[in-house]
């Protein structure tokens, strides 16, 4: 039923559980595919660059976060693709979902940073409000 599944991840516990759900849904339909989407936010880039100043590439630590997701996806045997996007997480995810024709967006209920969420509102809320397809928010 859901063939193009978009999973938004930020490497948090919640998004790991979201991925488990994405895999289960993907298994229900033959030939379905999971897009694992990770968004790099300009306002987060400062602390990411600072914290990885001496590593060869900032993306190393992100890749490490995505590695776990990738491992999970690989073991489950569903077909998946990892996408790294740039921009403000909420609108970027919605935009990608519209353009790639996703049938469902799956996202964790809370991200990594409680304070930022308090200030800016949660990404999952924004996605649920604006996406044109069903959105599954995983607690």
């Amino acid at each position: 039923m859901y063939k193009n599944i978009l999973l938004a991840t930020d490497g948090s516990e919640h998004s790991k559980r979201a991925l488990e759900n994405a895999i289960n849904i993907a298994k229900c339909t033959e030939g379905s595919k999971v897009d694992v989407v990770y968004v790099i936010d300009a306002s987060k880039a400062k602390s990411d660059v600072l914290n990885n100043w001496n590593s060869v590439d900032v993306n190393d630590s992100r890749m490490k976060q995505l590695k776990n997701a990738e491992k999970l996806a690989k073991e489950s045997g569903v077909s998946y693709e990892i996408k790294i996007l740039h921009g403000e997480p909420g609108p970027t995810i919605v935009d990608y979902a519209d353009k790639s024709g996703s049938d469902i967006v799956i996202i964790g209920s809370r991200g990594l940073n409680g304070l930022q969420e308090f200030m800016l509102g949660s990404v999952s809320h924004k996605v649920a409000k604006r996406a044109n397809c069903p959105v599954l928010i995983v607690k």
Partner: protein
Amino acid sequence: MTKITYAHTWLGNMKGDILSGLVVALALIPEAIAFSIIAGVDPMVGLYATFTICIVIAFVGGRPGMISGATGAMALLFIDLVAGHGLQYLLAATILTGIIQILFGIFKLARYMKFIPRSVMVGFVNALAIMIFMPQLQHFVGESWVMYVLAAVTLLIIYLFPYISKTIPSTLVALVVVTSIAIFMNVNVRSVGDIGSISQTLPIFLIPQIPINLETLSIIFPYALALAIVGLLESLLTASIVDDSTGTESDKNVESRGQGIANIITGFFGGMAGCAMIGQSVINIKSGGRGRTSSLLAGIFLMLLIVILGDIVVQIPMAALAGIMIMVAISTFDWNSIRTIHLVPRSDAAVMIVTVLTVVLTHNLAIGVFTGIILSSIFFVSKISRVHVESALEGNKRIYSIRGELFFASVTELLPKFNYEEASITEVEINLSRSHIWDDSAVVAIEKIAARFRENGKNVEVTGMNEASTELVGRLHNKLGSH
């Protein structure tokens, strides 16, 4: 990460660049004025600097989409120069800063920035945040409650307006609202006009009026060197942030050279030394700016706004400016470093804190960075100089296995780890297979250890030296003679 043509960096993102250029120009005005006030110069010096730097960097910078201008990091460095020698010396120092930065670019020194430890970089931005915050407090001294209320209103609008709309920058809304309150309600608070004047004219080319001799050079050189280093540090950090948030790469050596050219031209047009701005660049990226056009237009719009709205700009109350700068300080600070301070190695935390404290005490980011680098080198040496010696007995032979790096800092601790007078043995083996000999001190130390065993009548054998160590020992053996 594909290679993009120069023309594309101008024309590739016109719509986004025009819009973001305007947003950034508006955001630049209060900062350029506030940093001029911190430096003790007329607001026009900072505004001219931001204007010329934005335009020049658009053409010669290495990181499209990055915004440069008059910054707090630079302003802090020349407070003393301005106070002691005046504006003309600052302009001369700005030109010299540019020359040094061009040399940095030519000699491709940008890659060494990666050698600066992470904890020093974190200390740098945290210190910068504190140093932007502190001068704002003096604006409140001797002011009435109105000042506090206006500053609080500014901050409330900045942080709460995004809930209503995100298309209009909340800083701009705060600036307009609080300035209107001050003008229309006729409240008696100090404004930008009380501190300096705004001239609604374009900058003109001027050669700094200073005696050109060695004495002048000795005055401005230390400032120029510190400015060049701090400017490049912040610029290359900002460039990395822009690289990361746009998923593109940039040439850091071209950027170093570009910053230099921009500072030279700025110095001749009456502007103070500047560099890339982290906050403004992030605003630019978030507003959709990606290309060189965004920086060019930010500069042009800035000057247009000053020429058209100069009369209103002087009426911006200091309370609004202080509020905006407090926000800038809060967003500059790396709060993540406080959250994780108990998780990072204690030596890293110490380096970060010492870097911050040094800057707060000396008001000089360059000294802070150097102190941080020296301290972390000391920590590194002490960490790496730990040497372990394990010993085992095989009949009448004692085998010592040395584990660790052998060099000048680690050998002093090595000598007492052996029992030279052990009676029951006749043979000693020193196994170096898990160690590396780095310098002559290490060679001398091993020879000294062997000699002391021989003095006590033991046969000594050194085994397991790796190839590089053997080569070094062989080379030094002839030079150093018998020890």
